């Protein structure tokens, strides 16, 4: 069995063993989903929103909450890395006859599986509350895939911070500090055109904003290939910047 697969299972096992962590990272977006869709319903569920093509405020809010779920899992990925460094587990893996990059790959793959599951849970919850994916199964798959891609890129960032700092508190604080602007400086809660110019400008360099935008389109309006291509390009740029940096940090930490 390739080491990457072995380590993916090991990391997933850990998630199953501490289900509270996974549940908490799903519960949070669910609570937000209920709160915001109810408290904002009068304010946001308006003809103005429907004129833009969105079916309901709930449908509009759902993709942002899927992103919120994976951002927290990405943060946990960084924390798990710190814990492996502290417990001596990383050293143990380093003296095993395996390709060292499989340690990182095994983590990313386990993250991706967890994120797919979380995205699905939030989506199902939204559906039970009455939202519907207008673009059907393909749209559903597209949403889950793009949310997971963003999550993996974000996990790469969390691991970068974890490997460079080796510090759980710092990884945690940085993760939360970065997650909230990623969510609020996007169309997650309100269409961008209702927001100030500077938010619109920042959203243009925020990868999460692109993923949320595509999700909102897939929920209500329909697929837009141009929008999809822009999102993939932004995610590719993020990956090109983050992955070499994270691999570099990993190599430096395991030299």
């Amino acid at each position, binding site marked *: *069995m390739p080491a990457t697969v*072995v380590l993916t299972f*090991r990391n997933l*096992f*850990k998630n199953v*063993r501490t289900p509270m962590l996974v549940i908490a990272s799903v519960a949070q977006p669910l609570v937000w989903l209920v709160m915001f869709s109810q408290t904002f319903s009068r304010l946001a569920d308006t003809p103005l929103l429907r004129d833009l093509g969105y079916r309901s405020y709930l449908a509009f809010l759902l993709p942002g909450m899927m992103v919120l779920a994976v951002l927290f899992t990405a943060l946990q990925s960084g924390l798990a890395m710190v814990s492996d460094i502290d417990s*001596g*587990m990383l050293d143990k893996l380093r*003296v095993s*006859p395996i390709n060292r990059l499989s340690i990182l790959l095994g983590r990313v793959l386990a993250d991706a599986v967890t994120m797919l599951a979380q995205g699905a849970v939030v989506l199902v919850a939204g559906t039970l509350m009455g939202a519907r994916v207008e673009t059907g199964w393909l749209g559903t798959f597209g949403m889950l895939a793009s949310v997971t891609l963003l999550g993996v890129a974000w996990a790469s960032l969390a691991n970068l911070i974890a490997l460079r700092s080796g510090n759980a508190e710092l990884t945690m604080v940085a993760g939360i500090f970065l997650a909230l602007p990623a969510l609020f400086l996007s169309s997650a809660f309100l269409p961008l055109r209702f927001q100030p110019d500077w938010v619109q400008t920042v959203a243009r360099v925020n990868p999460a904003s692109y993923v949320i935008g595509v999700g909102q389109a897939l929920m209500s309006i329909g697929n837009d290939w141009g929008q999809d291509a822009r999102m993939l390009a932004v995610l590719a740029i993020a990956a090109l910047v983050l992955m070499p940096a994270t691999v570099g940090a990993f190599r430096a930490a395991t030299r």
Partner: protein
Amino acid sequence: MQPITARAPARAIEVKDLVKAYPGGKTALNGISFAVDRGEIFGFLGPNGSGKTTTVRILVTLLRATSGAARVSGFDVGRMASRVRESIGYTAQATGVDDDLTVHEHLVLQALLHGLSPSREQQRRIGELIDAFSLSDVANERASRLSGGLRRRLDVAQAMVHRPPVLFLDEPTIGLDPQSRGALWDHLRRASRDGTAIFLTTQYLEEADRACDRVAIIDGGRLVKEGTPAALKEEVGEGRLRLTLANGADPARAAQALAACPEVVGIEPGDPLVAYVRSVRPSIAPVIRRLDEVDIRVAGVETEQATLDDVFLRYTGRAPRTEAPAANSVSSLFAAAHGRRRR
């Protein structure tokens, strides 16, 4: 170092002129050389910060040496690190145990990481290790529920799953109760009889004395002494006489008198006066007689067998850490600091 040919199997560990200097200018290893054979238990003794762990981490490919050569199973640890990793088992000082996995899962994980298929033979091996390290009661418990001693045993069992020809154990018995410690030594001795070379570091001299075939004493990044425990002890003499002098006697003068005594190989001045002797019982009478000749009366004599503590003290000028705070080494440290012994 002997040339390594295909015909002559390489020694398990060969280290030559190993140096590790850190960027800040601190030198952790100052050119150490030694070799360990198959089936040998080699103990690396030294105080904290002497370079023990640095040596282990270089040998298990976690750290790069600044200069010098080190081979494990004949493979250079720098250039052929992956071959080295295939042939070693390693436990670090901080146990590398994953709180969320069970004891059994740890052993399976380790086997899989070494490319061993989950065959029936492999399962039997894991079952054997669980029994041998008395882990059967907790085989399906998560590591987070294990006591320190159990974690340590799991860690060593993990290092042996793939039957490595060379085993590196960094302070394997720290935190173990005497019973688990005995069981661990039994298992290590059995492995060494099967040809496994075992390199371990310890601060417990008494333990190295009993269990190691050979020991090396490291201090300040240098090997100060190497040999079998028996040979090392012989150098400091077979034992000691602890002489309590009668009131009014001058310890310095007594020490001077004993220096001329052929039975005495070393003196630690003070009161009581400690004389290191070649053989304990036969030297009692000559020593007392010699002091009598210079009009020094001896009020009491205690005899002690030499331990590696004495060797350690002799070559490093420091007492090692021992298990019981009241043990000899601590009192000798106290003596060095205060000029008298606490009894």
